[in-house]
């Protein structure tokens, strides 16, 4: 990796901004995500900010099942995120559809629509697991992984 790549990777890891999108979950995982922002877990220590805007974010946290309506929204939001970007699927609904897998409008987990980088299991996923998952995702900002995904 060249020097510039090393520098860019370093800064990308030091300042990951999140976009949190709820596809239609029971809000259990969402509450746990928001709990990470509270003084108990305080993810701002890692420079993580929950921006609500895909154009500002690096990592998209997705909870809930993907269905025929919100798949377009997911794709739109993913499209509006600037590269390099990562997807973290949180909770069993986002992983595979969870208990709602058999419902008529449910397509399944997030990976049916988007390329997921990290899966965080749980129902709901614990804040510690979510933080773990995000930190694991950060590793993918390194140059080789970025090149693999074709983000150049």
């Amino acid at each position, binding site marked *: 990796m060249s020097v510039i790549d090393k520098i860019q990777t370093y800064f990308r890891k*030091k300042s990951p901004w999140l976009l949190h999108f709820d596809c239609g979950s029971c809000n259990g995982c969402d509450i746990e995500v928001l709990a990470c922002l509270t003084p108990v877990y305080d993810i701002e220590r890692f420079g993580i900010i929950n921006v609500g805007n895909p154009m500002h974010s690096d990592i998209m946290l997705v909870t809930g099942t993907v269905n025929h309506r919100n798949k377009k929204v997911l794709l739109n939001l993913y499209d509006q995120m600037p590269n390099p970007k990562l997807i973290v699927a949180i909770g069993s609904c986002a992983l595979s559809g969870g208990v709602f897998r058999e419902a008529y409008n449910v397509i399944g987990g997030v990976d049916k629509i988007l390329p997921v980088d990290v899966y965080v299991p749980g129902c709901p996923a614990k804040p510690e697991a979510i933080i773990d998952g995000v930190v694991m995702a950060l590793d993918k900002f390194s140059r080789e992984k970025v090149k693999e995904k074709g983000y150049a």
Partner: protein
Amino acid sequence: MTQNIAQILAGIAAGPFLGGLISGLDRILTARLQARIGPPVLQPFFDVMKLLSKEKMAVNVWQAFCAYCYLVATAISLVLFFLQSDLLLILFTQAVGAVFLVVGALSSTSPYSQVGAHRELLQILTYEPLLVLVVVGIYLETGSFKISAVFNWHEPLLLKLPFLFLALGYALTIKLRKSPFDLSTSHHAHQELVKGLLTDYSGPFLALIEVGHWYEIMLILGLCSLFWATSWFGVIMLVSITYMLELIIDNVSARMNWRWMLGYVWAMGLTLSLVNLIWLYQG
């Protein structure tokens, strides 16, 4: 001549470096006030560097133009400050940046951008008369608009211009985008307009706007520092205490709407300024 060049370079450098540090301190102190730990003090620099390394993405190319103009205008105004130039000229130069920020936001058709831009215009409308009156007060006291006259003045300006300092405080709160005046865009939590004015900026352009904002922070804190320009200790104490007060106000108040902001700040700020100016005029 060499002194001028040194001042220019100091002005260009002070914005990013000092402004970023103050921004970082801001976040740590805010976090501590909220019983959190907060990010490292260099976090704003990490944010800007990360943004610079992102893909270039925009809603339209005009936004790139406006982001650059904003940065250049705020940088020029800070450089003029370091060159100890005319205060009124500095105000007008800073206003160039603010207008370009608005025009850039208006160029996006997203409602968040549009409403954010109009709120930003209303914010400009609110604080600009106050800044002009503060500068007029400095003129009435020192006899000159030039910053060099302030530095040569024998006593701290705060003694004769206390109400004008309070009026400046209103302008400072609005400029720093602190509650209750963080209508058009705000720093941390996303707000009812997503990111308001800055919603459709991203990547490198957002980084430029952030650095421009640092220049603005330095400029307005510089204006505050003029009120105790007789000693370095005085400057640091005044600016620190003012900034702490701003943080506390930010954390205890909720965001208000533009009608309240316009009405309240004009009523309080203009009255305070007028009273102080009448004092100076008579004395």
